[in-house]
């Protein structure tokens, strides 16, 4: 079980309100990702749930039970830290066994659970090593192992992959997703990387300045962003946001169109423009096109074979059915 409910939870550091009162429900077994730019309060929110920070107002409910005044250790949550926070003077085995030892489990039970966790995480060969002798990915797995053995109601991940290199990050991303499928335990995952959010989450919570901008499945957020912030934050490369005359044609203050929803042609189209920098990724090519519709260059996604030279003239055609319209406050218009 691991249903977590936040009722009007707020947090202030002195006079600065980091998180205004906020409601959120995380269902049992869900993989929820908190995503937002740095400083948006996502880590603080996670620490409020963990109990490492005290809430300034409101209540945190875990499985329907008010946990606001309960100490972190008794909330039944396990956390994986950004720096892994392994105990450097203990072997991997002792690191993983630490929460069990603190809980007063007998030695045999400790060994059993550590062995089990080590098998799940491919750490069996490293049990006697110290964290300092392990690679980044292995340390990450030890940190996860230390969380697993407690059999928590929910796992909390605080940017766990940000210290890993790109290749390893993709691998660990898969491993964590797989772990979630296997354990079916609630997981809350904090990241600033929208790719991690999109690939891993059942539910994404987009935060900005402590305020929840939108909650929804990755595709929901991608297809129907509630406002311009979510529209610009989710998706890579970013959605093109166009204001002014072109937006007014669609009765909106701002219109948004994703790079993959713009057709590019050298002969005809709605907007005329000149090609700027092009980025060739092999599978795709991104063109930055300066056109009359917008003062800023638009990003356009085309197939990898497409080649256009710098400065050549092109025509862009946005696909009308994928056009997003936003009002003056940045909210979505249906």
């Amino acid at each position, binding site marked *: 079980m691991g249903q977590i409910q936040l009722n009007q939870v707020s947090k202030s550091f002195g006079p600065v309100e980091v998180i205004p009162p906020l409601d959120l429900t995380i269902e049992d077994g869900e993989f929820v990702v908190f995503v937002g730019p740095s400083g948006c309060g996502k880590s603080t929110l996670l620490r409020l749930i*963990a109990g*490492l920070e005290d809430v300034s107002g409101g209540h945190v409910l875990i499985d329907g039970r008010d946990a606001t005044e309960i*100490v*972190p*250790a*008794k909330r039944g*949550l*396990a*956390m994986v*830290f*950004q*720096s892994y*926070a*392994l*105990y*450097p*003077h*203990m072997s991997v085995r002792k690191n993983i066994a*630490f*929460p069990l030892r*603190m*809980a007063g489990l007998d030695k045999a039970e400790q060994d059993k659970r550590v062995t089990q966790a080590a098998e799940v995480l491919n750490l069996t060969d490293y049990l006697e090593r110290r964290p300092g002798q392990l690679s980044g990915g292995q340390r990450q797995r030890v940190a996860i192992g*230390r969380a697993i053995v*407690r059999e928590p109601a929910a796992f909390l991940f605080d940017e766990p992959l940000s210290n890993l290199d790109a290749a390893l990050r993709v691998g660990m991303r898969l491993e964590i997703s797989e772990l979630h499928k296997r354990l079916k335990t609630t997981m809350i995952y904090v990241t600033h990387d929208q790719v991690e959010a999109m690939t891993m989450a059942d539910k994404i919570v987009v935060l900005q300045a402590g305020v929840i901008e939108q909650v929804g499945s990755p595709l929901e957020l991608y297809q129907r962003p509630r406002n311009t912030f979510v529209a610009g934050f989710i998706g890579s490369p970013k959605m093109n946001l166009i204001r002014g005359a072109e937006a007014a044609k669609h009765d909106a203050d701002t219109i948004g169109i994703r790079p993959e929803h713009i057709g590019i042609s050298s002969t005809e189209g709605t907007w005329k423009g000149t090609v700027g920098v092009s980025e060739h990724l092999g599978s795709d090519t991104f063109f930055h096109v300066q056109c009359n519709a917008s003062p800023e260059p638009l990003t356009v996604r085309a197939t990898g074979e497409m080649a256009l030279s710098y400065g050549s003239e092109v025509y862009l055609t946005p696909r009308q059915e994928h056009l997003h319209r936003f009002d003056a406050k940045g909210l979505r218009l249906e």
Partner: protein
Amino acid sequence: MATQHSRSAARVMMAPAVILLLGWMLVPLVMTLYFSFKQYLPLRGGDLGWVGFDNYVRFVTSSAFWPSIQATLAIVGGVLVITVILGTFLAMLLDQPMWGQGIVRILVIAPFFVMPTVSALVWKNLFMDPVNGLFAHLWKSVGATPIEWLSQASLPSIILIVSWQWLPFATLILLTAIQSLDSEQLEAAEMDGARWPSRFIYIILPHLSRAITVVILIQTIFLLAVFAEIFVTTQGSFGTRTLTYLIFQRVLESQNVGLGSAGGVYAIILANIIALFLMRIVGKNLDA
């Protein structure tokens, strides 16, 4: 070729410094060894010739020898225990964010800047004086008879004074060590269900072990040579005659340079034994 030339040139140019340093160390050592085999009484006939190991035998068979070793070890051990325990405690307190942190830290370090002679005099006259001392007034205010610190509790008094001087050193080193502890480790331990005592034992203490080792090693070296505090307060009476002080008395009060030199050689041996012993016990902490 050029490098070989410059290398030998470098050797020549470094030679004066090396020779000076070697002389600095070797001349006193050789002189101590030389005098330790002589009957040398400056005021009673001067150099009376070679006496072999007589001085060594006399020094250890004197009734003052073993008590002096005991006093030395008591002072070193006592000060180490007090400074390490209190230093850890103070370091953890000073690590807490608080108002006026900078000033408080300077105040904590201050005793280290007071000269040993001065601090011993301050303690002797302002605190421990049985008539006018602050402690005497404290005792009197609750109706108790003031303790004559330096005669009734002489060894603890000296341990107290020396600890006061060395506490800042221990605190300072342990504070810098504690500041390098990753706060996420403590939070992880908290999440793992470790209460404060467990967090201290399993996380903070192991993290500090290397710093504690350094404190113990450095302090031991200096504490073996404590002198001014004893000279100013008890003059070696009431069981506070350490090995260092015994040697001083043999050379300057008894005017027996040969006997004192033999004691000096024993002191060198003792210091080396303790250093070796400490390195064995705590040295492994430094490798890890």
